[in-house]
Protein backbone atom coordinates (compact mmCIF):
# COMPACT_ATOMS: atom_id res chain seq x y z
CA UNK A 1 0.00 0.00 0.00
CA UNK A 2 3.05 2.25 -0.02
CA UNK A 3 2.05 5.70 -1.23
CA UNK A 4 3.39 9.10 -0.22
CA UNK A 5 0.35 10.78 1.32
CA UNK A 6 1.71 14.29 1.52
CA UNK A 7 0.32 17.50 0.05
CA UNK A 8 1.70 19.79 -2.63
CA UNK A 9 4.80 21.71 -1.56
CA UNK A 10 5.87 19.13 1.01
CA UNK A 11 9.06 18.21 -0.83
CA UNK A 12 11.70 20.76 -1.89
CA UNK A 13 11.75 21.62 -5.60
CA UNK A 14 15.05 19.80 -6.29
CA UNK A 15 13.50 16.59 -4.91
CA UNK A 16 10.41 16.94 -7.10
CA UNK A 17 12.64 17.41 -10.15
CA UNK A 18 14.83 14.45 -9.17
CA UNK A 19 11.98 11.94 -8.60
CA UNK A 20 10.03 13.16 -11.61
CA UNK A 21 13.11 12.78 -13.81
CA UNK A 22 13.81 9.26 -12.58
CA UNK A 23 10.12 8.39 -13.03
CA UNK A 24 10.13 9.74 -16.61
CA UNK A 25 13.30 7.76 -17.42
CA UNK A 26 11.75 4.56 -16.01
CA UNK A 27 8.48 4.99 -17.89
CA UNK A 28 10.34 5.90 -21.12
CA UNK A 29 12.45 2.75 -20.86
CA UNK A 30 9.31 0.67 -20.25
CA UNK A 31 7.44 2.19 -23.21
CA UNK A 32 10.51 1.52 -25.38
CA UNK A 33 10.60 -2.12 -24.25
CA UNK A 34 6.85 -2.50 -24.90
CA UNK A 35 7.20 -1.03 -28.40
CA UNK A 36 9.96 -3.55 -29.08
CA UNK A 37 7.24 -6.16 -28.65
CA UNK A 38 7.97 -7.95 -25.43
CA UNK A 39 4.34 -8.06 -24.30
CA UNK A 40 1.98 -11.01 -24.69
CA UNK A 41 -1.58 -10.29 -25.80
CA UNK A 42 -3.26 -11.77 -22.75
CA UNK A 43 -1.17 -9.49 -20.54
CA UNK A 44 -2.69 -6.42 -22.23
CA UNK A 45 -6.20 -7.64 -21.49
CA UNK A 46 -5.28 -8.42 -17.91
CA UNK A 47 -3.61 -5.03 -17.57
CA UNK A 48 -6.94 -3.34 -18.36
CA UNK A 49 -8.74 -5.28 -15.65
CA UNK A 50 -5.79 -4.88 -13.28
CA UNK A 51 -5.80 -1.10 -13.71
CA UNK A 52 -9.53 -0.95 -12.93
CA UNK A 53 -9.19 -3.14 -9.84
CA UNK A 54 -6.08 -1.36 -8.61
CA UNK A 55 -7.59 2.11 -9.05
CA UNK A 56 -10.85 1.16 -7.30
CA UNK A 57 -9.08 -0.53 -4.37
CA UNK A 58 -6.61 2.35 -4.13
CA UNK A 59 -9.43 4.68 -3.13
CA UNK A 60 -11.08 2.41 -0.54
CA UNK A 61 -10.02 2.91 3.04
CA UNK A 62 -10.40 -0.30 5.05
CA UNK A 63 -10.72 -0.25 8.87
CA UNK A 64 -7.51 -2.12 9.68
CA UNK A 65 -4.35 -0.62 11.25
CA UNK A 66 -6.33 2.58 11.89
CA UNK A 67 -7.47 2.98 8.28
CA UNK A 68 -5.37 2.03 5.27
CA UNK A 69 -5.85 1.38 1.57
CA UNK A 70 -4.48 -1.40 -0.57
CA UNK A 71 -2.85 -1.03 -4.01
CA UNK A 72 -2.99 -4.52 -5.56
CA UNK A 73 0.27 -3.60 -7.30
CA UNK A 74 1.77 -6.96 -6.36
CA UNK A 75 -1.17 -8.73 -7.97
CA UNK A 76 -1.00 -6.47 -11.02
CA UNK A 77 2.73 -7.11 -11.40
CA UNK A 78 2.27 -10.89 -11.25
CA UNK A 79 -0.58 -11.07 -13.77
CA UNK A 80 0.32 -8.22 -16.14
CA UNK A 81 4.11 -8.38 -15.89
CA UNK A 82 6.65 -5.79 -14.77
CA UNK A 83 6.34 -3.51 -17.82
CA UNK A 84 2.56 -3.15 -17.88
CA UNK A 85 2.52 -3.27 -14.07
CA UNK A 86 4.66 -0.14 -13.95
CA UNK A 87 2.45 1.59 -16.52
CA UNK A 88 -0.63 0.70 -14.47
CA UNK A 89 1.06 2.25 -11.43
CA UNK A 90 1.47 5.47 -13.44
CA UNK A 91 -2.15 5.44 -14.65
CA UNK A 92 -3.57 4.74 -11.18
CA UNK A 93 -1.46 7.52 -9.66
CA UNK A 94 -2.50 10.02 -12.35
CA UNK A 95 -6.21 9.32 -11.82
CA UNK A 96 -5.78 9.33 -8.04
CA UNK A 97 -3.94 12.65 -8.06
CA UNK A 98 -6.62 14.10 -10.36
CA UNK A 99 -9.19 13.28 -7.67
CA UNK A 100 -7.03 14.76 -4.90
CA UNK A 101 -5.68 11.46 -3.51
CA UNK A 102 -1.95 12.12 -3.69
CA UNK A 103 -0.18 15.28 -4.81
CA UNK A 104 0.35 15.99 -8.51
CA UNK A 105 3.92 17.05 -7.75
CA UNK A 106 4.60 13.63 -6.21
CA UNK A 107 3.45 11.69 -9.28
CA UNK A 108 7.04 10.78 -10.17
CA UNK A 109 7.88 9.60 -6.65
CA UNK A 110 4.62 7.69 -6.19
CA UNK A 111 4.93 6.04 -9.60
CA UNK A 112 8.45 4.88 -8.70
CA UNK A 113 7.18 3.46 -5.40
CA UNK A 114 4.25 1.57 -6.92
CA UNK A 115 6.15 0.46 -10.02
CA UNK A 116 8.85 -1.05 -7.79
CA UNK A 117 6.14 -3.08 -6.04
CA UNK A 118 4.87 -4.54 -9.31
CA UNK A 119 8.37 -5.22 -10.67
CA UNK A 120 9.72 -6.89 -7.52
CA UNK A 121 6.52 -8.95 -7.05
CA UNK A 122 6.74 -10.24 -10.64
CA UNK A 123 10.38 -11.34 -10.41
CA UNK A 124 9.96 -12.79 -6.91
CA UNK A 125 6.97 -14.83 -8.14
CA UNK A 126 8.89 -16.14 -11.16
CA UNK A 127 11.89 -17.02 -8.99
CA UNK A 128 9.80 -18.88 -6.42
CA UNK A 129 7.87 -20.78 -9.11
CA UNK A 130 11.18 -21.83 -10.68
CA UNK A 131 12.13 -23.15 -7.24
CA UNK A 132 9.01 -25.34 -7.50
CA UNK A 133 6.95 -23.55 -4.85
CA UNK A 134 3.18 -23.99 -4.70
CA UNK A 135 1.15 -21.16 -6.21
CA UNK A 136 -0.28 -19.76 -2.96
CA UNK A 137 2.92 -19.40 -0.92
CA UNK A 138 4.82 -18.18 -4.01
CA UNK A 139 2.29 -15.48 -4.91
CA UNK A 140 1.63 -14.40 -1.30
CA UNK A 141 5.38 -14.17 -0.59
CA UNK A 142 6.09 -12.39 -3.87
CA UNK A 143 3.35 -9.79 -3.35
CA UNK A 144 4.46 -9.21 0.26
CA UNK A 145 8.10 -8.81 -0.81
CA UNK A 146 7.11 -6.49 -3.66
CA UNK A 147 5.07 -4.30 -1.35
CA UNK A 148 7.88 -4.22 1.20
CA UNK A 149 10.26 -3.03 -1.55
CA UNK A 150 7.81 -0.20 -2.27
CA UNK A 151 7.57 0.64 1.43
CA UNK A 152 11.35 0.88 1.81
CA UNK A 153 11.64 2.96 -1.35
CA UNK A 154 8.90 5.28 -0.07
CA UNK A 155 10.83 5.72 3.18
CA UNK A 156 14.08 6.37 1.35
CA UNK A 157 12.45 8.98 -0.89
CA UNK A 158 11.02 10.88 2.09
CA UNK A 159 14.29 10.77 4.06
CA UNK A 160 16.43 11.83 1.08
CA UNK A 161 14.01 14.62 0.14
CA UNK A 162 13.29 15.97 3.61
CA UNK A 163 9.91 17.47 4.47
CA UNK A 164 9.26 21.21 4.11
CA UNK A 165 7.90 22.73 7.30
CA UNK A 166 8.96 19.84 9.51
CA UNK A 167 11.03 20.88 12.51
CA UNK A 168 12.30 17.33 12.98
CA UNK A 169 16.05 16.80 12.73
CA UNK A 170 17.03 14.21 10.10
CA UNK A 171 17.53 11.49 12.76
CA UNK A 172 14.04 11.93 14.25
CA UNK A 173 12.54 12.15 10.76
CA UNK A 174 14.22 8.85 9.92
CA UNK A 175 12.68 7.17 13.00
CA UNK A 176 9.22 8.57 12.13
CA UNK A 177 9.58 7.35 8.55
CA UNK A 178 10.72 3.94 9.85
CA UNK A 179 7.43 3.76 11.76
CA UNK A 180 5.47 4.44 8.57
CA UNK A 181 7.52 1.86 6.67
CA UNK A 182 6.86 -0.65 9.49
CA UNK A 183 3.12 -0.05 9.26
CA UNK A 184 3.31 -0.57 5.49
CA UNK A 185 5.00 -3.94 6.08
CA UNK A 186 2.04 -4.95 8.25
CA UNK A 187 -0.37 -3.93 5.49
CA UNK A 188 1.73 -5.87 2.97
CA UNK A 189 0.83 -9.07 4.83
CA UNK A 190 -2.91 -8.46 4.33
CA UNK A 191 -2.41 -7.64 0.67
CA UNK A 192 -0.06 -10.59 0.24
CA UNK A 193 -2.65 -13.06 1.56
CA UNK A 194 -5.35 -11.55 -0.68
CA UNK A 195 -3.03 -11.73 -3.70
CA UNK A 196 -2.17 -15.35 -2.87
CA UNK A 197 -5.82 -16.39 -2.92
CA UNK A 198 -6.55 -14.50 -6.17
CA UNK A 199 -3.53 -15.95 -8.00
CA UNK A 200 -4.30 -19.44 -6.72
CA UNK A 201 -7.87 -19.10 -8.02
CA UNK A 202 -6.64 -17.81 -11.40
CA UNK A 203 -4.09 -20.64 -11.61
CA UNK A 204 -6.83 -23.21 -11.02
CA UNK A 205 -9.31 -21.86 -13.60
CA UNK A 206 -7.02 -20.22 -16.20
CA UNK A 207 -3.40 -21.25 -15.60
CA UNK A 208 -2.42 -19.68 -18.94
CA UNK A 209 -3.25 -16.23 -17.53
CA UNK A 210 -0.48 -16.53 -14.96
CA UNK A 211 1.93 -18.33 -17.27
CA UNK A 212 1.45 -21.65 -15.50
CA UNK A 213 -0.07 -23.65 -18.33
CA UNK A 214 3.19 -25.52 -19.01
CA UNK A 215 3.69 -26.36 -15.39
CA UNK A 216 0.17 -27.76 -15.08
CA UNK A 217 0.57 -29.74 -18.27
CA UNK A 218 3.74 -31.29 -16.91
CA UNK A 219 2.05 -32.25 -13.67
CA UNK A 220 -1.10 -33.59 -15.30
CA UNK A 221 -1.40 -37.35 -15.45
CA UNK A 222 -1.37 -38.66 -18.99
CA UNK A 223 -4.32 -40.95 -18.40
CA UNK A 224 -2.39 -43.94 -19.72
CA UNK A 225 -2.42 -46.83 -17.33
CA UNK A 226 -0.71 -50.15 -17.43
Amino acid sequence: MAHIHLGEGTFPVWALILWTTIGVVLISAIVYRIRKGSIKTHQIALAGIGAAASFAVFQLNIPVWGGIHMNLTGLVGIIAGPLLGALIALVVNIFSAALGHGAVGLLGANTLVNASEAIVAYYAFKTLMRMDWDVFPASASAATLGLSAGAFLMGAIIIISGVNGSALPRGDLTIAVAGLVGLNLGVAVIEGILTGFIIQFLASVRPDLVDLADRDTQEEPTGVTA
Partner: protein
Amino acid sequence: MQRWKQYGGLLGLFAAFLAAGYWGFTATGGALPYAKRSAKALQRGVQESGGSLVDFGRGIVVAGPIRKGGMMIEFGAIVLVLVTLGIGLYIYVDRYGGFDDREPPVS
Protein backbone atom coordinates in the same frame (compact mmCIF):
# COMPACT_ATOMS: atom_id res chain seq x y z
CA MET B 1 10.75 -27.65 -2.46
CA GLN B 2 9.10 -29.30 0.54
CA ARG B 3 5.75 -27.77 1.41
CA TRP B 4 6.54 -27.20 5.10
CA LYS B 5 9.56 -25.13 4.12
CA GLN B 6 7.46 -22.99 1.78
CA TYR B 7 4.73 -22.32 4.33
CA GLY B 8 7.29 -22.00 7.14
CA GLY B 9 9.10 -19.31 5.16
CA LEU B 10 5.83 -17.55 4.40
CA LEU B 11 4.76 -17.63 8.07
CA GLY B 12 8.17 -16.33 9.15
CA LEU B 13 7.90 -13.46 6.68
CA PHE B 14 4.37 -12.64 7.85
CA ALA B 15 5.36 -12.80 11.54
CA ALA B 16 8.28 -10.42 11.03
CA PHE B 17 6.22 -7.98 8.97
CA LEU B 18 3.25 -8.07 11.37
CA ALA B 19 5.60 -7.30 14.27
CA ALA B 20 7.04 -4.39 12.27
CA GLY B 21 3.50 -3.30 11.43
CA TYR B 22 2.44 -3.30 15.09
CA TRP B 23 5.50 -1.30 16.09
CA GLY B 24 4.78 1.17 13.28
CA PHE B 25 1.13 1.35 14.33
CA THR B 26 1.91 2.28 17.94
CA ALA B 27 4.91 4.49 17.15
CA THR B 28 3.12 6.66 14.61
CA GLY B 29 0.01 7.55 16.56
CA GLY B 30 -2.09 4.39 17.00
CA ALA B 31 -5.54 4.13 15.44
CA LEU B 32 -5.34 6.95 12.88
CA PRO B 33 -6.21 7.00 9.18
CA TYR B 34 -3.01 6.71 7.13
CA ALA B 35 -2.94 10.22 5.64
CA LYS B 36 -3.41 11.82 9.07
CA ARG B 37 -0.84 9.43 10.58
CA SER B 38 1.65 10.26 7.86
CA ALA B 39 1.29 14.02 8.22
CA LYS B 40 1.48 13.93 12.05
CA ALA B 41 4.43 11.55 12.21
CA LEU B 42 6.48 13.55 9.71
CA GLN B 43 5.72 16.87 11.40
CA ARG B 44 5.91 15.90 15.08
CA GLY B 45 7.97 12.71 15.08
CA VAL B 46 7.29 9.44 16.87
CA GLN B 47 4.41 9.57 19.39
CA GLU B 48 3.41 6.34 21.12
CA SER B 49 -0.31 5.67 21.11
CA GLY B 50 -2.69 2.72 20.94
CA GLY B 51 -6.20 1.86 19.80
CA SER B 52 -7.86 -1.09 18.14
CA LEU B 53 -6.07 -2.71 15.21
CA VAL B 54 -9.38 -3.52 13.53
CA ASP B 55 -12.42 -1.22 13.77
CA PHE B 56 -15.31 -2.68 11.82
CA GLY B 57 -17.56 0.14 13.06
CA ARG B 58 -15.65 2.51 10.81
CA GLY B 59 -16.55 0.46 7.74
CA ILE B 60 -14.98 0.64 4.30
CA VAL B 61 -15.00 4.25 3.12
CA VAL B 62 -13.77 6.06 0.04
CA ALA B 63 -10.54 8.04 0.55
CA GLY B 64 -11.06 11.37 2.35
CA PRO B 65 -9.95 13.74 -0.44
CA ILE B 66 -12.48 12.16 -2.84
CA ARG B 67 -15.34 11.84 -0.33
CA LYS B 68 -14.91 15.27 1.22
CA GLY B 69 -14.00 16.94 -2.06
CA GLY B 70 -17.32 15.96 -3.68
CA MET B 71 -15.60 13.81 -6.30
CA MET B 72 -17.66 10.64 -5.82
CA ILE B 73 -19.33 10.86 -9.24
CA GLU B 74 -15.97 11.35 -10.95
CA PHE B 75 -14.55 8.42 -8.98
CA GLY B 76 -17.46 6.17 -9.99
CA ALA B 77 -17.17 7.30 -13.62
CA ILE B 78 -13.45 6.50 -13.80
CA VAL B 79 -13.98 3.06 -12.23
CA LEU B 80 -16.81 2.37 -14.69
CA VAL B 81 -14.70 3.42 -17.69
CA LEU B 82 -11.72 1.33 -16.54
CA VAL B 83 -13.87 -1.73 -15.80
CA THR B 84 -15.65 -1.47 -19.18
CA LEU B 85 -12.33 -1.03 -20.98
CA GLY B 86 -10.73 -3.92 -19.08
CA ILE B 87 -13.59 -6.37 -19.64
CA GLY B 88 -13.88 -5.24 -23.27
CA LEU B 89 -10.18 -5.91 -23.86
CA TYR B 90 -10.42 -9.28 -22.16
CA ILE B 91 -13.41 -10.39 -24.24
CA TYR B 92 -11.79 -9.11 -27.45
CA VAL B 93 -8.54 -10.94 -26.79
CA ASP B 94 -10.33 -14.09 -25.67
CA ARG B 95 -12.59 -14.13 -28.75
CA TYR B 96 -10.20 -12.97 -31.46
CA GLY B 97 -6.93 -14.19 -30.03
CA GLY B 98 -5.05 -10.92 -29.95
CA PHE B 99 -4.34 -7.62 -31.64
CA ASP B 100 -2.01 -8.79 -34.37
CA ASP B 101 -2.79 -10.22 -37.82
CA ARG B 102 -2.23 -13.84 -36.95
CA GLU B 103 -4.99 -16.42 -37.27
CA PRO B 104 -7.13 -16.75 -34.13
CA PRO B 105 -6.49 -19.93 -32.15
CA VAL B 106 -8.64 -22.90 -33.05
CA SER B 107 -10.95 -23.71 -30.16
